[in-house]
């Protein structure tokens, strides 16, 4: 367990040293503040458009941080040949992967805290309220979703040879699921066999990341979700993350590192 935490802390320190997060945070803040300064019919209380833009930027930034950080972990270790001294120590391949996953996931969590604090400040500046439970649920579900995405990117970094290919495929998959995931069963009804069965199989097999997207509830001030539902969604996310992690460990144990 100590090995896993040691590797995870290295990943977190790497994210702190790199400029990716800071650049994305500054861009998010700048765009949000510029949009907030726009005058709509001399009404200073309009806020929902600003919340929508800010949350959209936070989601894009967090996906960039998660996929970008995870996708380059193993390829860079292999390219720099640092993976060999690392595995020469009493660290198993599974521990290495778990450490990398935990580090990336925690790093995403730290980034999310910064993003959501900024979002809360922006919303509060206009609404004069701070619905803490709603924001906590949104951030928590967002983090759970990033767990699945990080695990998926890890699996991709073992399957695909180049980090760029892995990152691109992960982005396409994640955005595709977020946009179309919940509609696949409706789409399948318009199809004929065997396309219908294939589409429905995909619908039931994919991780439904849209469960974790509660932006509309936050933007339009809907009441918080029931905690049991939140818990079920978290368990659902963890299940998929575990499946991807287990697949990664299985493949990584059989993979030759010097190719």
């Amino acid at each position, binding site marked *: 367990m100590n090995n896993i935490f040691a590797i995870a802390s290295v990943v977190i320190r790497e994210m702190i040293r790199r400029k990716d997060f800071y650049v994305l945070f500054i861009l998010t803040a700048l765009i949000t503040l510029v949009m907030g300064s726009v005058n709509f019919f001399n009404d200073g*209380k*309009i806020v929902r458009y600003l919340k929508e833009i800010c949350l959209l930027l936070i989601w894009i930034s967090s996906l960039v941080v998660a996929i970008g950080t995870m996708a380059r972990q193993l390829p860079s270790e292999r390219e720099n040949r640092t993976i060999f001294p690392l595995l020469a120590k009493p660290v198993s391949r599974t521990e290495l992967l778990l450490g990398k996953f935990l580090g990336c996931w925690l790093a995403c969590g730290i980034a999310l805290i910064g993003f959501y604090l900024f979002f809360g400040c922006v919303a509060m500046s206009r609404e004069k309220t701070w619905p803490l439970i709603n924001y906590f649920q949104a951030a928590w579900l967002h983090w759970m979703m990033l767990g699945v995405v990080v695990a998926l990117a890890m699996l991709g970094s073992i399957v695909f040879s180049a980090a760029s290919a892995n990152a691109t495929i992960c982005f396409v998959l994640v955005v595709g699921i977020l946009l179309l995931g919940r509609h696949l069963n*409706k789409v399948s009804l318009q199809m004929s066999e065997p396309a219908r069965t294939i589409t429905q199989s995909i619908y039931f097999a994919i991780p439904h990341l849209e469960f974790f997207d*509660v932006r509309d509830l936050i933007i*339009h001030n809907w*009441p918080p979700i029931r905690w049991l539902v939140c818990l079920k969604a978290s368990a659902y996310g963890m299940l998929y993350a575990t499946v991807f992690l287990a697949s990664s460990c299985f493949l990584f144990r059989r993979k030759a590192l010097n190719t």
Partner: protein
Amino acid sequence: MKRPLYLIVPLLLMLAVCFATDLQRWFSSVNENSKRSQDPLSLLLGDARKMFANHFFIKADAYFHSGFYPTIYDNREAFKTPHTAEDSGAMKGQNTGDEEHFPGKKRDWIDGFGRQFFPSVHTHLGQDAPGGKTNGVELADGSGDVREILPWLKTAASFDPERIETYSVTAYWLRSELKKIDEAEGFLRDGLRANPGHPQLLFELGRIYFEDRHGTNHARNVWELALRNVGDLTDWSGERRFLIGQLLGQLAKLEEGAGDYPRAMTYLASLKQVSPSPESVQKWMNDLQAKISPPN
């Protein structure tokens, strides 16, 4: 004889200016609407800006429902005409079906579970929406949250300045719910600058003068101009019938209020031909007739 190089530079410059003036003439003649071509959005997007404008107009309606809105994969029968436009009277409603239950029955556990993560109750801003008047978290100064639709409507207008409904809908909500009369009038005038003399915009402007500024004469002038700009009153194609009916009805109401009953009767006679319910117009005419010549 060797010529100095510095003489070539002004010569080339002169040639460039000559070409530029000639090309400018050609460029202006090629572009039918040079004014439009100067707009950066038009230059960048071309006619695609109308698609974006439509998206933002619909987005405003989605905000009006606090996010409870059908996607392209859902049953949109009850949302064919945006409710923001229908409620404002800018568009004739063509909605049918159940607006409460457009998602339909739960198809499977994923569908059922997923519905807890996005808005799934039909509400309207300023009426029963979360964070609105009835939920105790009033954010505004008693004017509800309808203001939240305004950014998208303004964006829609900037993407497609020729879309008339955007101005009418925005002006209606600005003046009726938010009591921002000056802003509503200003926005309609922006619309009139982009679409000179458009009867729908003149009708909305007349409503501001009549209902908010209580300027009967000003409203009459604007509505009569709108009626003239409508042109042939017997051509009821598209939304024209709806607009002609609205104009005649408002003019009749204005003249009745001003005491000019014969003129009001003239407008009502025309309205009777246009109205989908001529019986109610006839009843109005009978009431007016009774005022002109009270029964002994």
